């Protein structure tokens, strides 16, 4: 297992290299010139002298290979540079926002699991019942409803009408655990609900399939109690595809929180990168995208490792 993990981690290097090239290329094919952005007046009139100065200062007219090398060399040495726009260090800005994005992604993911798996199990065990139909309807609604819309409805209900929760914003847990929790409720539910729908449907179908397997019948024939059959024998096997789906969802969540972050004005990486794209703040966009894609790669690795925990037959040599 250790060898496997080591091999996978080494395998990440070419992956990250390819990602860096892709990310760098994307930023450079975007229309617009960061120097023009920084040198524009209120009416959009571009100050030619300032533009020339900024272009030279950041080497924006250097060959692309030179610019790429300069960026990568800086990254390797831990010098991520400063934002063109704010002058603040890129590492510092990504670091503070990454912490929040990870919190939101993990909480939403756990919410999705906590809603999706029990609902899926209940739905499979009470197949074609009213409860099953209600759960299925929930799943369809969860998939169909855009999370920003759900978020907006929650704001109107819980913040404006009832006054129970804040409309948005973020308070670090170190400052006030209560305010932190209040602030995270709606974004977490808005994001988690949509994910839980998929998990619920997959859990239901996988469990139904497993429940028809011979080993489940054998377990019942041995006289094991139904809860033990379900939770220990059937569900554990049924969860394999759910693990795959949910870990990929987690990876996707890390890069997919931007709309929720915008609706609830939260300080996440996604929203920050979108602002940076608009401002043509290359270094922020590059490092932000690197972070988000790294999240996906790591989530994929976690999924592979989780298989071995759930299914002892899977061994990586």
């Amino acid at each position, binding site marked *: 297992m250790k060898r496997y993990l080591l091999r996978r981690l080494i395998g990440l290097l070419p992956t990250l290299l390819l990602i860096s090239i*892709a990310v760098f290329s*994307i930023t450079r094919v975007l229309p*617009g010139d960061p120097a*023009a952005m*920084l040198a524009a007046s209120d009416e959009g009139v571009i100050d030619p002298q300032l533009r020339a100065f900024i272009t030279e200062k950041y080497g924006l007219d250097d060959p692309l290979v030179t610019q790429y090398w300069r960026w990568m060399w800086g990254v390797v040495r831990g010098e991520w540079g400063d934002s063109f726009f704010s002058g603040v260090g890129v590492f510092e800005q990504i670091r503070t926002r990454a912490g929040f994005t990870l919190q939101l992604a993990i909480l939403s993911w756990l919410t999705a699991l906590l809603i999706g798996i029990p609902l899926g199990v209940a739905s499979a065990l009470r197949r074609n019942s009213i409860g099953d139909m209600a759960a299925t309807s929930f799943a369809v609604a969860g998939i169909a409803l855009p999370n920003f819309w759900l978020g907006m409805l929650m704001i109107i209900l819980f913040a404006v009408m009832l006054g129970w929760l804040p409309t948005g914003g973020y308070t670090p847990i170190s400052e006030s655990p209560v305010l932190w929790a209040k602030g995270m409720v709606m974004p977490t539910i808005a994001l988690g609900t949509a994910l839980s729908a998929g998990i619920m449907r997959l859990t239901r179908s996988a469990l139904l399939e497993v429940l028809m397997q011979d080993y489940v019948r054998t377990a019942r024939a041995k006289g094991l109690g139904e809860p033990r059959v379900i939770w220990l024998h059937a569900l554990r096997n049924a969860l394999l595809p759910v693990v795959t789906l949910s870990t990929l969802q987690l990876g996707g969540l890390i890069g997919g929180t931007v709309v929720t972050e915008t*609706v609830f004005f939260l300080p996440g990486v996604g929203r*920050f990168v979108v602002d940076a794209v608009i401002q043509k703040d290359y270094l922020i966009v590059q490092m932000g995208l690197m972070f988000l894609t790294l999240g996906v790669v790591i989530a994929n690795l976690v999924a592979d490792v989780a298989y071995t925990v759930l299914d002892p037959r899977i061994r990586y040599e």
Partner: protein
Amino acid sequence: MLRAALRPLRSTALAVIVVGLLGGAVLITAACGSEEPAPTATKAPAVAPTTAPAATATAVPATKAPAATATAVPATKAPAATATAVPATKAPVATAAPDPAAPKYPPAGGQYGGTLNMAYFRAPTPPDGYQSEGGFEGFFLWINNEALLGRGPGTSVSLAESLATRWEVLDEGLRVRLTIRKGVQFQGGLGLMTPQDVAWSFNRWLEPGAAGCPGCASAMRSVKKIEVAGNDFVDLALDRIDASIIVKLTERNAVIHSQKHWTAIGGADAHKSKPIGTGPYKLTEWQPGTVIKYERHNEWWQGKPLADFVNVLTISETRTRLAALQTGQANVAFLQSEMIPAARKDSNIDVWAGDFGREGWNWNPRIAPLNDIRVRRALVKAIDRDALNTSVYLDTMYMSKTTCGLPYPPQASDCKDLWQTEWFRYDVAGAKKLIEEYAKEKGLTLPLTFKGAVERRPDRQQLNEFLQGAWREIGVTYTFETTANVAASSALAEPCTDVAHVSTGSPLTELRLLEGTFSLLKSVEMQNCDKLGKKLNPEDQKVQDEIEALLLEASLTLDDTKRDNLYKRVDYLATKYVFETFPLMNRQNFFGCNNTITGGCGNEKKGIDINRGEGFFRQQDFWAKKK
């Protein structure tokens, strides 16, 4: 084993796919541009208040008149209106005096303590007043920054003292002497502001890249040098008379920062996020795109500011911003047109409108078919501005039928004969006739085509869709590209190839700033046109020559009335000939204030002292109500 060996490749492939998807999303985002607000406007009265009291004026007594031979103008209730109303004579004339009747800070009923949360609509540019960009930044810019002169009271077109208490025009207009206020403390215990700080702050525009200030070098181009002239004075030596230099002292290029601090933290880049100014609040933290935090500057020269803290929150989602205002999470919020009806219905929210700005476009009359006045007129005549106001702006714009741009007397330029006659009056048939006449003369078949660029901002995109429909009616096909922001739109127009229309606006409409509004006349875009041999047609060239001559003459004219008349002529000509920058309509910025938790809302609602003139309002005039 093979499967295991292939796993890294699978991850790679997956990651590349994800990058591709993310990249696609990024490209779409970039193609669509920024999420900016509808600039909001109103059917405001054509006449603005002119006698509002000056709230900012002077908690600190005016300093002694300069030892030179200044002829002080007696203090009046409206001290600021006459910046440079002096003929170009050898006699120096003091042109500003403090107003003894001005109310003192803090405002009546103000309570100390608490936190004020202000909701802004987009990721703010740097809170360093000198290096920030964008007209809307006035929403927060003057919390911690102060310029040498202020604006108001009453309207943005009058001047008021601030860090300078007097200004004088000397040496036949070639020298401006500023009397620097005594006792002004920098934030953060950095000590007293000195004339040296003032001179240094100004001279930043001489540094490479003007130390990061867009447009500063251009704005200050008539200034030869800035020097300390004794303990109380700073002199601006000009290489030519520049009548608009005084008004420029209210803007970002005249923001005063601490030289000591700037140098200590390493210069312009670091100062973007750690500015130290003289304003009522000191910046403590800037999380770009999320929040700017300020704390009270106890030694502010006007007195101890009311709130302990001020936070400027970025809430780009319109409905959430309104919800934050309704729930009290925000004390004051920037409102967009679609938020105004709901905000007005809420008795807990006071809604008021700030200053006017122009909303329209920059056209390039060197690119066909806009190189013919008949086409340009036809395009204007085809627009039903009232329908535009109703459908796109929910009747929140001000569609002037009498003036070219600025609706405030005495600076408003009379354009009744343009809007109310056949020249511009809405008339689809007449517009079509002009287009057909042009096409026939040039041997062209309809539809005519031209291209434009518009930033991704719902109201401006909708405006362009409206224009598209209106112009289709008269046989003109207009296509536009959506960009991230107005700078990106301008960059598309810069090569002078095919993009001839850029939707834009300008934050202020003061006549003395028309020079800036018509800066396109000498822009890189026009230089590129010249290189490509795209010249103005003779008729337009004649108009441009006249506009440039008038602008030059105005800049050399120290008499307010005469100068304003020259600028009015520029305004009129430029509007009549749809010349490069066109004020299709006027907008106002709207704000909402939650009166259950916020003090000072009422003052804004009543229109008292609303026009700080930096375009917005003064955060220090609000306070958090004690529960």
